[in-house]
């Protein structure tokens, strides 16, 4: 009985025209519409011919860099009032953030890329070719190596902002106390690291992973090996001498003279400054901070030593270049901005390269006239770059890097046979190259 009366009461309520329930329903509908309509994307073009360019940088470690890039952007907007630049200072893992952003339509119009421009990025159309910016004169003014690392199928895909390289920083006083000469071969380096190891202060720091990622290139190059052969059609790292060099990395790791578990990694100079290790594999970018904190008299530099008697010292030719997003809406405006910043404006280039950290300007003229790079030890390291610097080719993809790094990990950490591992990695690299050549 009670059920029935409830039923008919409900039926009565449901049949009335306006009641509480239907009011709530319609409010929910209206509110939902309002809420979801607010999620429309704001248009990029602010006014009729106002253009908004998004410019993405990675987080540079040196102080003052973020303020500097914003200053450059403001300067550009002063001279070109219809272009507004939004700077994204990307913290943390820049590579992942950039890759994720490039997949969407809201990718930055101008972004930087480190070391080289990968072929896969270009094939997907995500980077615009910048050939029209490179007149003969401009091209001659740039270092050929900087251009080569972004030349794919004949077109150049970036404008290099700065050149980076690495070197071994050592404390002269500690080496003198231990009676050790600055090492010039890999064996001497291993002995020196052991001699300088006092337990509390380790002998050498090459990264928290024992140098597997940081020294992947330098070890190979110091044994006269290369990642790929001259035509970039086959791997060239699976030689006996390179295998011996990676085996020596294992020996180095087993000496217990390597600093591991430091709070920051090798690219940050604090391990050297705080005296956690006597020698540190670091980058040129950290030199001003090191010279300031440790003092120029006590700091010496070395390239990564040769792996055997016929080898050569090696260091990486890295750096960052500016790319223009190939699927953006304002490609011409972005190209003009990049041209203004990194081709025409010598003052900004010198400030950016030398005002905060030390980098070598990629324009030959700017590099030769840069004052801070004329004195040792900065001039020594600039010399290392020119004499011993090796660059990654654009055809060297992430998959190849992972394959080689996994091989070296097994060599160093699991006592695997170096030649076998390198040959296995070479197979993977070859199949990647075949895929790139097909596609």
């Amino acid at each position, binding site marked *: 009985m009670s059920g*029935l009366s409830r*039923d*008919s009461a409900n*039926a009565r309520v*449901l*049949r009335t025209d306006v009641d509480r*329930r239907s009011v709530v*329903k319609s409010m*929910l*509908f209206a509110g*939902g519409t309002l809420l979801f309509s607010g999620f429309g994307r704001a248009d990029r073009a602010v006014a009729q011919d106002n253009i908004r360019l998004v410019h993405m940088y990675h987080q540079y470690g040196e102080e003052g860099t973020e303020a500097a890039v914003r200053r450059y952007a403001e300067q550009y907007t002063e001279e070109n009032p219809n272009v507004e630049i939004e700077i994204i200072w990307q913290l*943390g*893992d820049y*590579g*992942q953030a950039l*890759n*994720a952003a*490039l*997949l969407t339509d809201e990718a930055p119009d101008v972004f930087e890329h480190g070391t080289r421009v990968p072929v*896969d*990025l270009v*094939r*997907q159309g*995500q980077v615009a070719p910048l050939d029209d910016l490179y007149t003969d004169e401009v091209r001659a003014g740039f270092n050929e190596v900087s251009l080569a690392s972004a030349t794919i199928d004949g077109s150049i895909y970036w404008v290099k902002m700065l050149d980076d390289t690495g070197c071994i920083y050592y404390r002269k006083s500690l080496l003198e106390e231990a009676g050790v000469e600055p090492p010039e071969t890999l064996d001497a380096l291993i002995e020196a690291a052991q001699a300088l190891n006092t*337990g*509390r202060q380790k002998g050498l720091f090459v*990264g*928290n*992973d*024992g*140098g*597997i*990622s*940081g020294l992947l290139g330098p070890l190979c190059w110091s044994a006269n090996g290369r990642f790929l052969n001259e035509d970039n059609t086959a791997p060239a790292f699976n030689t006996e001498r390179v295998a011996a060099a990676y085996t020596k990395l294992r020996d180095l790791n087993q000496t217990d003279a390597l*600093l*591991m*578990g*430091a*709070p920051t*990694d*090798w*690219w940050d100079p604090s391990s050297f400054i705080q005296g*956690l290790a006597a020698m540190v594999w670091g980058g040129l970018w950290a030199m001003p901070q090191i010279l300031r904190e440790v003092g120029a008299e006590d700091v010496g530099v070395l390239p990564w030593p040769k792996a055997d008697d016929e080898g050569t010292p090696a260091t990486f030719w890295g750096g960052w270049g500016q790319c223009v997003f190939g699927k953006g809406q304002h490609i011409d405006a972005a190209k003009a901005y990049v041209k203004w910043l990194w081709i025409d404006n010598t003052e900004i280039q010198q400030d950016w390269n030398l005002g905060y950290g030390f980098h070598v300007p990629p324009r030959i003229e700017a590099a030769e006239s840069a004052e801070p790079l004329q004195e040792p030890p900065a001039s020594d390291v600039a010399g290392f770059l020119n004499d011993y610097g090796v660059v990654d080719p654009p055809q060297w*993809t*992430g*998959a190849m890097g*992972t394959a080689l*790094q*996994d091989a*070296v*990990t097994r060599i160093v*950490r*699991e006592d695997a046979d170096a030649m076998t591992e390198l040959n296995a990695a070479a197979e993977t690299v070859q199949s990647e190259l075949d895929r790139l050549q097909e596609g």
Partner: protein
Amino acid sequence: MEAAERADVYVAKVPWWRQSRWEATIAFLLFIAPMIIGLGIFTFLPIGWGLLISFSDARNTISIGNWVGFDNYVDILSNAEFRDSLVTFAIFAVFIVPITFFFSLGLALLVNSVGFGRGFFRSVFFIPTAISYVVASIVWKMGIFSGLPYGFANMVLYWFGSDRVIAWIGETDPPYYWLVLVTCRLWLQVGFYMIIFLAGLQEIDRSLYEAAAVDGAQSGWTTFWTITFPLLRNTSIAVLLLNFIAAFQAFDEFINILGGVGSSGNISLARPPLVYLYQIAMGQQDYGRGSAGAFILTAIIIFVTIVQGRIFGFGQRS
């Protein structure tokens, strides 16, 4: 008597789509619409898209269309690194699942038997669950288990007279990083499972213990083994299952403790499947293979769940 037969309530024989219940149905649909739409857009659509991507060659792009059939699946399964990552996961699960189970059961028993301040202890053990895995990983990596002489763990060793400065995360012989990884996850998740066990414990009828006491059973191990543990069977199975799935999805602490910008050489020390797929998809920008790997992983989890359910008879009345 049926309502339809009573004379004073007339319910016409109308077709089902004209019954008065349709208004209630519309209301129901409207109210669950936001959740269903959200679920559809943010969960089902990406899963479907991911399935389509796994059948295409998608590098540096997430658009589909470059169909390659099952190539990505074959690639991943024939990859030694992927199989290694499954082995890593198996080792990890063998450690973490029993240890978590025993710790959380033990804690639950202790907290249950505390006379005073039970709420306080429950909160204290549960709070780590609210802490982000990333934060805990960083604290573990740089504060407690850093390789410097003044890292917390090294200092504790020093107090005990040891002279060695252990690089907890870098050394491989013996592999101390497993200690770091397992303790981090243990601290973070024991509280959660303890709460589940507490709920299970509280459902056990007190009169059983009284009956056992009358029969002369000692309280303690005997009552635990004969009364408590059997009655916790469904809870135990649920905890084991959840634990196993969580171990399969282990990612945060591995990538934060073993990873690092600039020294990625440590990640391959202990690389569970999700970290490996992350490196493939985000690192090498090969979304096709990454998606294929994700679906293979899902299939494995579903298979193991079904098998485990069958073996333990999950859901049957005890």
